[in-house]
């Protein structure tokens, strides 16, 4: 019994180190996409960052429940969505205006930047039910099946929503009377 106890300590330490390494790898690989997804879900950079922190804190606490690294992405997205939902349970938030996001790309011309902001504005204005599957596809490269699984939706529903999301965006980007000219 004593022997086992003596052996236990180093292995606990190793477990802790392994957990830390695993967590770090997870953060490095996925934090950017998770943050972007949070932003497009929430529409506010500061809140998105808070929710991402909460998400990774939860992930850290329950890292042992993640058995397969391949499932990490969808696991984190699930936690993030839950954390975001909790935000509304805790407190009824005022509707948050989507921030103006400036893509810091010095090489981009003014026109390109302007165009990009247009696209962002329209993406942000999509209904959540369209925006969310679209972002899963764009940010994470999810297939229709994967999105359906992640959002607990029927695959046909997902495809319909993706279809509508793009068609709405296309319409919105083509329509604007003044700015639309630039699409020419």
């Amino acid at each position: 019994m004593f022997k086992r106890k003596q052996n236990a300590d180093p292995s606990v330490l190793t477990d802790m180190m392994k957990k830390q390494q695993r967590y770090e790898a997870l953060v490095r690989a996925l934090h950017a996409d998770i943050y972007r997804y949070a932003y497009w879900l929430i529409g506010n950079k500061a809140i998105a960052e808070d929710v991402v922190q909460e998400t990774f804190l939860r992930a850290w606490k329950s890292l042992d429940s993640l058995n397969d690294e391949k499932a990490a992405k969808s696991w984190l997205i699930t936690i993030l969505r839950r954390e975001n939902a909790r935000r509304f349970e805790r407190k009824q938030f005022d509707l948050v205006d989507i921030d103006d996001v400036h893509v810091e790309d010095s090489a981009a011309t003014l026109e390109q930047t302007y165009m990009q902001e247009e696209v962002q504005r329209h993406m942000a204005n999509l209904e959540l039910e369209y925006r969310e599957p679209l972002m899963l596809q764009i940010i994470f490269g999810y297939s229709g099946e994967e999105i359906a699984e992640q959002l607990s939706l029927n695959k046909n529903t997902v495809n319909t929503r993706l279809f509508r999301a793009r068609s709405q965006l296309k319409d919105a980007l083509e329509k604007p009377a003044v700015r639309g000219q630039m699409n020419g």
Partner: protein
Amino acid sequence: MDELEFRRRVYANPDDTSHDIGSAAKSDPNKQQFLSETRALNEQLKTAANIPVPDNLADKLIWQSALRDHAQQKQRARWHIAMAASVAFAVGLTFALWTPSKIDLGHAALAHMDHAEIEMQFAASPVSLELVNAKLESMGAELTQHIGNVYVANYCQLDNYKALHLIVDTEQGPVSLFVMPHEADATLPYRFSDDRYVGKGFSTQRASVMLVGDKDSDLHAISGKVRESLI
């Protein structure tokens, strides 16, 4: 593949590289154009979605887990310290409450020894075992056998306890035996002394006992007898 189905599938996933999408596009310039346009739009969306991530977000996320672990460990340590402090406090309090009364009961016995000397002067003949036991009865105790000549058997008050004070003649000289009810156990001193007397306390089956003898006397023999005889 008809036009509508084609558009649905391309809109649902512009990056769909399925063979049937490809061949449908090849065979129809309109479809090809739609596919190209939609893919271009999709690239635009991807670029637009690719918003900048806050500096050091990854480090922050890694730090927060480390900090949390540290905080938990600290909390655990704090908990232990709190426990240790509580125990230390309880021990200290016990000593503070206990020790003085221990001293008091021993002191009370020692103080009573002054009376004992006076009482001894009036003691003419030994008190019978029957009389001693009659008095011990009120303490719930009993002497089963002779422990030596008892010259004095008087009730007295030691600290908060009623005691029967016996003065027993021994080889070491007169020894005072204070018999008290068991309630006195909690504050019974194990050994006590002053410049004239030494004393020891112990507990028997039904009573608490203190023996007090002259400074140089050995209480070993009489305490053995008392242990054997007093129940």
